[in-house]
């Protein structure tokens, strides 16, 4: 297990290096000079930045400077906001996005397992049909429509009751987080429900469930001890990619609900062509996702004995 963890971490570091390089190459190809945008940069700042990032030097030198800074954990200073370090920006806005994302993945995971198991139990009966209809809706309707509808519903409920049940936008308390994270987790929940359902159905007709029946176990015990645990395995394997989907899906939700997360900040930085913020955020997100995938894999090992002992 330790060997496995170490190998996965090493792979992760190499992957992050690749992400950083790809980011550098993509940004290097952006037409124009990072400093020649319409935002006036004083000659002094310009000279400083050129010196710091080697902008007047060849690309390989720039790359080495960039990687060196990354190794030191220095993402640089924002090009558009004076004296604001990218690290500070991430430190300030990422926890917001992370909280939103964690809540969303909790909603999606619990909901997916619950609804999926339920539909499999009631296969082809009313609860199955109703839930699967909602699932298809959840997969087919874009997240921004859900976000808009969620906000609209909140506005209407608050109007109807004459007082604010839940805040319509903004951030701060747990009440601000509920609807946005639910909206954010919705499509993943739908996807996981589907996965859980088909996984459950496959296991219902598996040999070892037949064995459990032949042993005379009561259905409730077969369900909990033999079906559920095995059915969750495929759901856990897709949690890694799901976290990635939810993190990026956060952009829209942050925009619609005016949540000061890193995603909204990233979109802003792209609109202003704030080089360091764009690069820093991308590399940070990439590293975060790589770490999440590794964590999910290790978690999987805890559940499935076949992986644990490899």
């Amino acid at each position, binding site marked *: 297990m330790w060997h496995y963890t170490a190998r996965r971490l090493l792979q992760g570091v190499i992957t992050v290096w690749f992400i950083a390089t790809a980011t550098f190459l993509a940004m290097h190809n952006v037409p124009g000079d990072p400093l020649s945008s319409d935002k006036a940069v004083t000659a002094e700042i310009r000279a400083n930045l050129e010196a710091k990032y080697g902008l007047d030097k060849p690309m390989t030198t720039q790359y080495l400077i960039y990687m060196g800074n990354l190794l030191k954990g220095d993402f640089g200073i924002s090009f558009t906001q004076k004296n604001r370090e990218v690290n500070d920006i991430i430190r300030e806005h990422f926890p917001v996005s992370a909280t939103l994302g964690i809540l969303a993945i909790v909603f999606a995971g619990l909901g997916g397992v619950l609804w999926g198991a339920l539909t499999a139990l009631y296969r082809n009966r009313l609860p199955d049909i109703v839930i699967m209809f909602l699932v298809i809706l959840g997969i087919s309707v874009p997240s921004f429509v859900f976000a808009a509808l969620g906000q609209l519903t909140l506005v209407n409920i608050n109007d109807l009751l004459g007082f604010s049940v839940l805040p319509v936008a903004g951030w701060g308390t747990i009440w601000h987080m509920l609807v946005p994270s639910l909206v954010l987790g919705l499509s993943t929940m739908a996807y996981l429900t589907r996965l859980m359902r088909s996984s459950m159905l496959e296991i219902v007709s598996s040999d*070892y469930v037949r*064995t*459990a*029946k*032949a*042993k005379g176990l009561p259905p409730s015990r077969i369900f909990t001890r033999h079906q559920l645990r095995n059915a969750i395995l495929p759901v856990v394997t897709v949690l890694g990619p799901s976290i990635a989907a939810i993190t990026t899906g956060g952009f829209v939700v942050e925009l619609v609900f005016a949540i000061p997360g890193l995603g909204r900040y990233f979109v802003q930085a792209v609109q202003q062509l704030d080089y360091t913020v764009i690069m820093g955020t991308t590399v940070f997100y990439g590293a975060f996702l790589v770490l999440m995938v590794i964590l999910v894999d290790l978690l999987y090992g805890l559940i499935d*004995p076949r992986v644990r002992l490899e």
Partner: protein
Amino acid sequence: MTAPLLQVDDLRVEFDTYGGTVQAVRGISFRVDAGETLAIVGESGCGKSVTVQSLMGLTPMPPGRITSGSARLRGHEILGRTTIDGRDIRGREIGMIFQDPMTSLNPTMSIGDQIAETLEVHRGWSHKRALARAVELLDMARIPEAARRAKQYPFEFSGGMLQRAMIAMSIACEPAILIADEPTTALDVTIQAQVLDLMGDLQRDTGMAIVLITHDLGVVARMADEVVVMYAGQVAEQGTVDDVFYRSSHPYTLGLRAAMPSNDPAPAGAGEPKHRLVPIEGSPPDLFHPPKGCAYAARCPYAMKVCSEQDPAPHFQTEQHFARCWLHHPTAPRVPELFQQQRAEAGA
């Protein structure tokens, strides 16, 4: 006379599929007594697994359906029930093992837990006590280092060990009957012998009855007291193992024997000097539309006009031995292979 341990009468099972209704089992009857081994033989798809799974209530319903028949355990009907006299049928009265031990055990649960589970449910034992017994059972099933092995997971076991663990699990509650559905098909030949020996020894110790499903006549010869030869959902021939092997009276049984590899220097049945394996040409009938005559007629080398027109009735050779074949009709031509042993024995 007391009721037999298990008596099955005229069992019929159908399945609804998207292609139509399959009549998988078309009137099967047999009985088993304590300490006895009944083998049900037949090729793939002849309904032998469906028969025993229906007894255990393991056929999925729908699409499956038991259309008629009865199965009585010590005189109590078990079809469609899970308990008799408050005792669970499955796991307690009847234990069952399956063809593929690699997929028949829960991959995420330790072997010991899976065995102990049966005892916890049927006997209400504590987990600790059940687990201790599970180790004993594994030991009985000749798994070395049973205590350590009980903590392991199925993927850490070999196929033969898994099947022995399955046996340990199925006899945990000392059932009256052990149903073994092709228990050795997925195993190496050397392992097969170990598993069969284990079953035989346990039977001797506990006096349980065994219903053994197989397509391997070698296994039948080794284990069985009584044999049911199934073809296309029906019993083709039934009798004691000697009757069926040495006094085969159905052409299908003859065909099976001719197709069986053997190191017997003087093979019975085929009158050829060298023992050549003779396959049975053709394939079993479509059970969506079972033929109106004998199901074997299309493949039978002795088929007569009547065979494709009327279903033959069982013709009894002795009280326990019968074959469903028109050749035993008094007006039918005599087929020497079907009668030579009888004559030989009568002469001897």
